[in-house]
């Protein structure tokens, strides 16, 4: 369990003159679940997008499963197959059914046969609890169901790690639990996960480490108990007062 899955070293990033990430260091070991929190605009989502190369960065290094993103030899498309990502607004392909959303990448990227991909999709839909929705379009699914399909779509590529960018913040309260349950099960099965979320129940149950970011920097890090019961910095205290 000590194998390093994601290693972020001295990462800095600017949008024009504005420094969005400032000298970020973080090591995620295999099987760990990390929760990233902080006020909006603190750089959490940007950091997540740097890990799978959706955002370029100017300084530092990110190594995923032994492959460096900054190495010109690295094929980003191949690297991204190892890292699943789930977005705030689900981002399912609206013109495809739930099953087609899940099978697109396995078929086109892995060259899996239609039949094998369909079987895989059925299995995943069963796992997320909505096998009967295979042929429904995203428009006919609730937010919670859409987000679960988005998780299944990412899992279909059998990733070694998963990134979650505020996966429940666009959901109605009664749907949050069904998505968190899938995420908790995933964490307990040993998936390596980095989650941007303010869901405290989730953090308490599965987070190995909580990272608090503000203004592009990691201000504080610790276990659930450390961070929520005994925050050290003023910024973290201030933030916790607002969300709790």
């Amino acid at each position, binding site marked *: 369990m000590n194998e390093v899955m994601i290693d972020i070293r001295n990462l800095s990033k600017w949008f024009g003159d504005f420094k969005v990430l400032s000298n970020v260091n973080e090591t995620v070991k295999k099987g760990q679940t990390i929760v990233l929190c902080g006020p909006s605009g603190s750089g959490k989502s940007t950091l997540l997008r740097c890990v799978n190369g959706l955002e370029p960065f100017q300084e530092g290094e990110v190594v995923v499963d032994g492959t460096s993103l900054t190495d010109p030899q690295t094929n980003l498309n191949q690297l*991204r197959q190892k*890292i699943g990502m789930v977005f705030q607004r689900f981002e*399912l392909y609206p013109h495809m059914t739930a099953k087609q959303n899940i099978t*697109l*990448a396995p078929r086109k990227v892995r060259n899996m046969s239609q039949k094998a991909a369909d079987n895989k999709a059925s299995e995943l839909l069963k796992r997320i609890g909505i096998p009967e929705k295979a042929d429904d379009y995203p428009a006919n699914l609730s937010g919670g169901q859409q987000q679960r399909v988005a998780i299944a779509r990412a899992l279909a*590529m059998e990733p070694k790690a998963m990134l979650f960018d505020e996966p429940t913040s666009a959901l109605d309260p009664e749907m949050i639990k069904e998505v968190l349950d899938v995420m908790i099960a995933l964490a307990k099965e040993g998936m390596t996960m980095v989650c941007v979320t303010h869901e405290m129940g989730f953090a308490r149950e599965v987070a190995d480490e909580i990272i608090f970011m503000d203004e592009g920097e990691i201000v504080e890090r610790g276990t659930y108990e450390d961070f929520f019961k005994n925050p050290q910095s003023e910024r973290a205290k201030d933030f916790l007062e607002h969300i709790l």
Partner: protein
Amino acid sequence: MFFDYHVIIENLPYLLQGLVVTFKLAGLALAGGIFFGMLVGLGRISQRNLIYYPVSAFVNFLRNIPLIIIIFWVYFILPIMVGRNIDPFLAAALAFIIFESTYFGEIFRAGYQSISKDMVGSAYATGLTYWQVARYVTIPIAFRRMLPSLITQSIITFQDTSLAFVIGLHEFVTRANVVNNLEYRSIEIYSFVAVVFLILCYIGSRISLHFETKYRKANVL
């Protein structure tokens, strides 16, 4: 007899030949307008100033000038510049392609821009390549979103072809005018022209509505 339909029946072959010219002109205007429109649309979202600014200037310039002036330019001024006459059909086709490419360009720009950064990101995140993302995700979604506007703009283009009248191109409306000058039956002839346009354009707008309802239901729009 107040409404003498014989005048239409007797001149029908002549009028329909004009309609064929109208269809040819509209077909060329649409094919060229849509093809160059795609390029104009890409230019309008380009990150490179060298592409973005000239294309934007082209679009803003042409969209603020009446179509008829562009037809005059191509038919009367372009021959002076190139030193030889241009046939009315070619001039009209050229003017329409230039003009429509700006309108279609804006439709394509809106279509490309309607796709969120995260939608593209979610496709890349599964390991799809640039061309796979374009082929399976962005182009199909953008196309569905643009289709109603594309059909509507095509109907407008079809109606606008009658402006080629001003440079004497023998399309449908010009020929109707010729018949009227001989027969003095303006009520019958111009009503007939209106009904033909009405039927063709109404069919087009129903098709557009069909796709709009379908895609709105699927939440693609």
